[in-house]
Structure formats: C-alpha cells, structure tokens
C-alpha cells in the first residue's frame, strides 16, 4: 500500500503546455504514472506528446475520469488553478509553484477547508509525492526512489526530500510513499496529515521525517508522535548551524511561542520518542538500523 496516490491514480497536468509542465509531466508519465490529460485554457484539442490537452479541468475530468491534478503554473495563476481543480471534483492536488503570495495561500487554503473539505492540497512550493513503482506526481527524480517499503518519508524541504530518498535507496531500504509538504507559510498538507496516514497504512512500518528551522510545525508533529504514533520515527531538522532567518517582527515571534530553532524542535521530537539524527546521512543510517529490527 501507499498513501495519497497509487497505481490507479489518474492525473491531469495544469500547465502541461509550458516548459516546466511538459518536462515534469512527461517525466511523471514515463515513470509509469497515469498522466491522462493536460489543461491549458485556449489550447484544448491539442496534445503534448500524445497527452490530450483540454481548456478546463472540468472538461479534462469529464473526458478522462481523472482524480488528481498536478499544478505547474506561474504564481499569479496558481490560486485560480487550484480552486478550479477542486471545483471540478479532483480529490488530490499537487502544486509545485514557488513564489505564491502568502495572502493567496491563506485564502485558497481556507476556501478549500470550507467548500471542499474532501480535497487534499499538497504544497504549494513542494516537490510532490511519489509512491515508488506506482505513481509520481511532481518534480522528484523517480530513479532515486526504491519500491517496496517499508519506510514512509515526509519532508518540509524539497531538496532534502530527495536526499532522504537517496540515503535510503543507497542502503537498499525501500519506501511506501515519500511526501514533500513544502516550506511555504500555509501548506495544504501538514506533517501531522502525513504521519496519521502512515500510521494507518499497513505497509508502512517506520517513518522518516525531515523538518527545518522556523515556525512550529515540527513541535506540533512531535506532540502528534507522542500521542498517536506506534511506528518508529526518525527525524532530522535542517538548520542546526544556520544563521537566524528573516525576522518576522514582534507579532510573528509571539505566535510561534518559541524561536523556532532546530535545537528546540529536536528536543521536542526526542521527547516524543523519535530518533533524532544530526544530518541526512545519519538519519538514513538510523533508519537502516531500525528496519533491520522489524519483522
């Protein structure tokens, strides 16, 4: 099994006719993902390397029965693209767009929460999701993932997601699903959403979680691990030695309730019973040790 996506997932690519959409959309298809359609307003009736293009998500869903969408459009069009997909009945939306204004993110997150509670948004500004051997939606290089499980990966950072996959695959430890949730202010899917899904997935036996400095998402995840996770969790929090990030002013510091330092996050995760590593390689090594003890 896997979480969120599998071999039956049918994907449309919003922005397939753009250079990024074409490159990654076709790469996802070549990986084995069912990429059934593209959507670009005004280009309906054309095709991209055999993938039919429609004018709207509604048209594409009616014609293909797609249930997932991969949004690869520039920041100014991302908000409308996401809401169009949700309104058209897509249940899972992956948005990789980087640079969407925070006000837009706050707005479409809450529109989805209210009007489309059954829709899951992953991202924005995330690498996407890959269930190795089954489905790859996003920009992750499929050849660095290894099918078969038993590890689930969830990461806030794009490139560290690849690093985590790479560390495990090098050690011949497979993955059930790897989810990059993205590091933007209002991520559609949280660490907790992924941890809960991995806890329920029978094929996932252990979880690797990659966090980074800032905000309080890791602390919230730590509380969830403490209260709800029976499966072992290995964590790495990037930025142990990083300089203080952009100051958000007084109001921001109060909300977070802590400084958002890697040290505070690591302490919370260790307190929750997770194994905490100091770098991605060590996280991979700890996970290999844990996987050996399973069965």
């Amino acid at each position, binding site marked *: 099994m896997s979480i969120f996506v599998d071999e039956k997932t049918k994907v449309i690519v919003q922005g397939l006719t753009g250079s990024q959409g074409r490159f990654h959309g076709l790469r996802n298809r070549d990986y084995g993902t069912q990429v059934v359609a593209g959507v670009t307003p005004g280009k309906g009736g054309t095709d991209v390397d055999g993938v039919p293009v429609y004018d709207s998500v509604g048209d594409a869903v009616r014609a293909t029965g797609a249930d997932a969408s991969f949004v690869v459009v520039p920041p100014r069009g991302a908000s409308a693209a996401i809401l169009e997909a949700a309104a058209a009945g897509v249940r899972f939306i992956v948005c990789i767009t980087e640079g969407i204004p925070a006000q837009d993110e706050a707005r479409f997150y809450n529109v989805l929460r*209210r009007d489309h509670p059954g829709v899951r948004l992953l991202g924005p500004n995330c690498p996407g999701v890959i269930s190795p051997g089954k489905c790859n939606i996003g920009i992750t290089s499929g050849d660095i993932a290894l099918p078969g499980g038993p590890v689930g990966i969830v990461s806030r950072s794009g*490139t560290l997601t690849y690093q985590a996959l790479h560390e495990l695959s090098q050690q011949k430890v497979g993955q059930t699903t790897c989810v990059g949730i993205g590091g933007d202010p209002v991520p559609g899917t949280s660490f907790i959403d992924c941890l809960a899904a991995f806890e329920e997935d029978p094929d996932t036996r252990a979880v690797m979680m990659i966090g980074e400095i800032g*905000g309080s998402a890791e602390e919230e995840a730590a509380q969830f691990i403490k209260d709800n996770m029976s499966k072992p969790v290995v964590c790495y929090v990037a930025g142990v030695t990083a300089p203080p990030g952009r100051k958000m*002013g*007084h109001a*921001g510091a109060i909300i977070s309730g802590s400084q958002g330092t890697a040290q505070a996050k690591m302490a919370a995760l260790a307190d929750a019973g997770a194994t905490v590593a100091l*770098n991605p390689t060590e996280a991979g090594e700890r996970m290999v040790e844990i996987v050996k003890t399973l069965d």
Partner: protein
Amino acid sequence: MDLYEYQGKQYFARYGIPTSPGGVADTVDEAVTQADAAGYPVVVKAQVKVGGRGKAGGIKLANDAQEVATYASAILGMDIHGHVVHRLWVEHASDIAREYYASFTLDRAAKLHLCMVSAKGGVEIEEVAATDPTAIAKLHVDPVDGLSVAAAARLVEEAGLEPEARGPAAELLVALYRCYVEGDCDLAEINPLILTTDGRVHALDAKVTLDDNAAFRHPEWEEFAGTETLDERELLAKEKGLNYIGLSGSVGIIANGAGLAMSTLDVVTQAGGSAANFLDIGGGANADVMAAALEVINTDQAVRSIFVNIFGGITRCDEVANGIVEALGRVDLRSPIVLRLDGTNAEAGHAILASHISDRLVVDETMLGAARRAVALAGGAT
C-alpha cells in the same frame, strides 16, 4: 522586505489609516522646511530599520526651527546599532492621552490571520506578552470572511481601550486589515497607536513587512526597493535572484533549495569547518544562475574552498554543470570547488564536467564526503 517608518506611514495613508502630518528630510535644511510645514512642535525621527531608536537618541522633540536644526544635524550620520542614519522623518508632535498596540500577521499554526490589540502600547510587545499576556486581545480572522467593524469593535472593547477610542480604533483596524491583505503585508504593526487628548486615534509608528512574493502585482513597491541598504555582495546576489546570507567562515556554500543549503551548513560544521555563507540558488536554476553564484562567492576574500551541493529535482544537473563550466571560463576563481551532484540529469551533468576535473574542481559522491574534502581544502578543521 521591511519598510522604513516613513514608508510604512505612506503605505498606511493609501488605505486611509490616519497618521501625523509630516515629511522626509535628508538634510538639515530639508528638516527645517518639513517642520515649518508640519507645524511646531515637531518630532525628528531617525529612519533606520532597527529597534531602540529612542534610547539611542534618534528621536527628539523640537519646539522651533533652531531646535530642529540642532537635532537634525546631530541625528543625521548617527550610528544606531550599526545602522547609519541617512534620512529623517519630521512630523507634528501629538498630544498623547493613551498608547495602544495593534497588529495583523499570519498565524501559521491556525492557518488564519491574527489580529492583536493591547491597551498597553508604546513598549516592546514581547515584554507585554511575557509579563501580562492577558493584556493582549487576540482575534483570528478567516480570509474568506474578512474583518467586520462589529468584530473589530468587540476586540478593542475586550482589549480595554478607553470608550472614546473604541469607535475610531475599530474603524482603523478594518483599514489596517485592508492594508495588510490588499497591500500584501507579512506584518502590519502599529506601536504605539495613540489616543490624542482631543479624542482622535492614529498611528504614531509603522512597522510594515511586505511579502516579496507579491511584488508582481505591486509596481508601486519599486520605490521601496531602491532604498534598501545592501552591501555589494548582497546586491549582486539579489540582482541574480540568489538567496544569499554572508557568514564569517572559510567554506563557500552553494546549494539548491533552502533546506539542502541549511543542511550543507550543518555538515560543514560537523566536519569541523565553518561556512562563509548561505546561498540557495533556488529551484530550476539554470547555467547563468550557477555561474552568478560562483561569482558572488568569489568576491568573498575569506573563502578558501567552495562546496557546491546539488540534488536535482526541478533543477537539472546538466544545467548546473554548464554553469560551472561557464564560470570556470568567465571568472578567475580563487578557490577550488568541491562538487556533489545527484538527481535529475545527474549523469549528463557528470559527463559535461568530465573533461574539467582537476585539483580546482573535485567531485565527491556523497554529501558528507564532499563536506570533509571542502573543509580540508579550506585549511582543515577550525
């Protein structure tokens, strides 16, 4: 991007948030002219993006032109916590009855906007939060609903603002919310928000952080960008779209993605070295961006080796390799490069670099291995 106080007040004015009459001055003569226009007494305020201006002597009350000239001359050129004052804001002095606090920002955990109001303004709000948390009234605002005058009125009452301040304060909050949302602010903060002795409520200070991601729909922000004080290297990095932060070590760092860049700093430190910088070339960087990143690092005299750590996703390793080759031809790099290249099109990238491998360009298979070599080339563990 953080705005200066005067820019924040000008931004507030676009949304009808009342401020004191005043103007900007870069010279003593201009300060006097602005003071004459605003009407005495006036307050002469240093424009720096750092707290503690008042205590440092950067804010003075002046009763006539002579005093304005004296204070303006003292404050211009003053160094306030490492920030040199080049500009003043001169405004009519207010008769203050009460000092309040008001702000809007995003509560990431709740995924809603957060409005905070306090009757205890004029002091550091963190201090209020620590010593008297009940003095801060908070309201989550759903961006789909927005903020009504009625909800704002309940909040200012809860915060304990004086009865005569509540009406105008509630209206001001609604205007500040519009400024925060339509103006694409990460933070819109007024401290102090004052009640004057004649019953008016207005902003005596302005702290505004704009969301750089929204610049595409705010052409008016260009005037703010021109006043940012960056050093030469930061300016060069910004022009090239690079996320660069200077540090004090000897290993130059280039990585794609903020997470991997932070992690690269971590492993360099764990290998016994120290990073000279944080540099994220971003997602989808092409050859030109990679070459620019090497140029920026090359201007840092403290750098002894450069660790380029790339895991391609949307970034293609062949593009990165082309950028390195281009930089080798274009820039006289003072330091050797240690490269780790994995991910999208990695094989093509390695093939492009094959004929350029030398003691000036070393490739290592792993992130930890590359970190150790970069630290060794920089002179070993510190």
